[in-house]
Structure formats: structure tokens, C-alpha cells
């Protein structure tokens, strides 16, 4: 089974801190995604990457950046954390274009910014 591992299950950070969320997948998937999940809003795409060093903005990229230096690792960076970035962050990966085999999600990181 493909596994997507997110480094932290829970994080508490202070306003203004730089925050790194790490995601690693073990099945050589080309595509990786970062979503945030908020009640009543579903999952919203922050950034995605379709190859090493390649990245594209999703629907809500403001305040975030990403890094993909190796195929298996996709990092989400909050340059200066703010309270409105308190959320559940989900990483996902998929094989091939159009994700015809579906996404595999990580278990999520619940980030609280105080």
C-alpha cells in the first residue's frame, strides 16, 4: 500500500513564526498536493507539484509557499504564521495525470496558531 506520511499530527505555533509542514510518500507518485480542511468549507487546494522543483498555485496560496527538492517529499511553508491559518492540513499524492487511481492522503496535521 502507498503511504503518505505527514511529520506531525498536532502543532502549536505562535503568530509570526515560520512553520514547516513535511509530507513524504513512498510509492514514486508524480503528483503531490497540499489542502487545508475547514468545517463547512471542505478541502481547498493550497499548492500542488507535478514534478521535482515544479509547483503551481492552487486556489488559496496566499501566505504559503512550497518546496519539492526530491520526488518523495513535498513541504508546505507558512512564511509568517497567522491565526487565520489555524486549520487541518492534508497532504495527498497521486499517480499519473488526472489522478485516475485516486488520491492517497496523509493523516493530516492539525495546526493551531496562537
Amino acid at each position, binding site marked *: 500500500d502507498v503511504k503518505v506520511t505527514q511529520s506531525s499530527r498536532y502543532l502549536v505555533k505562535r503568530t509570526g513564526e515560520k512553520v514547516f509542514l513535511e509530507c513524504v510518500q513512498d510509492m514514486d507518485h508524480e503528483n503531490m498536493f497540499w489542502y487545508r480542511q475547514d468545517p463547512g468549507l471542505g478541502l*481547498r487546494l493550497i499548492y*500542488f507539484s507535478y514534478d521535482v522543483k515544479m509547483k503551481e498555485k492552487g486556489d488559496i496560496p496566499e501566505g504559503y509557499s512550497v518546496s519539492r527538492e526530491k520526488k518523495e517529499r513535498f513541504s508546505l511553508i507558512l512564511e509568517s504564521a497567522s491565526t487565520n491559518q489555524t486549520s487541518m492540513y492534508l497532504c495527498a499524492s497521486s499517480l499519473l495525470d*488526472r489522478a485516475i487511481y485516486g488520491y*492517497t492522503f496523509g493523516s493530516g496535521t492539525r495546526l493551531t496558531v496562537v
Partner: protein
Amino acid sequence: QQPVQSPQAVILREGEDAVINCSSSKALYSVHWYRQKHGEAPVFLMILLKGGEQKGHEKISASFNEKKQQSSLYLTASQLSYSGTYFCGTDPNAGGTSYGKLTFGQGTILTVHP
């Protein structure tokens, strides 16, 4: 623009049936369905492709009406294990590649009681 799911919540007794709808304002290449149990990662259920047939396994199936840009998820003879939040994810039928980028609905909370 996010697809719209309806209803927002469903409460069932074991053995009852449910239908969850997903409607998009855009032409679609595919629709994905995922289930997320409380505190867990979303899990891929199935994908409906443009031009494809209705899909399903056991008591969970889905249909895709391309002309109406709608998909429906059918859960028959529900079991306690079906409880969770169901999300549809849509891939628009734009030209070129999408890299599997999905836009998710806001989710439908399904609760099955004994």
C-alpha cells in the same frame, strides 16, 4: 469554484439507503468520491470518468451525468461502518493536462445508527 454537495448531512438507521449529490458549474473530465472517518485521512472510493459507465462495488455505487455536470453516490442497505463525511472531488474538462488537481465539495456528513 467548488462543486456543491447535497444534502449537507444525512442520518440513517442501519439498512436504510442514501443518495449524496455533487453538482458542478463546469464541464467535468472526472468525479472522485472519498470517505473520511472522524480523525482519519480521506479514503478514495471510486472515480467516474467522462464517457464511462456507472461504477460501484458491493453496496456503494455512483453515477455521472456529464450533460448536467452532476454525480450521485448511492449507499444501499447502510452499515454502521458507512458513517463519515463524504466528499466529491472534480477534475474539469479543460484542454491539456490537469495533473490530477481536484476541487472538492464541502462534504456530506453521514451518520448511521443501529
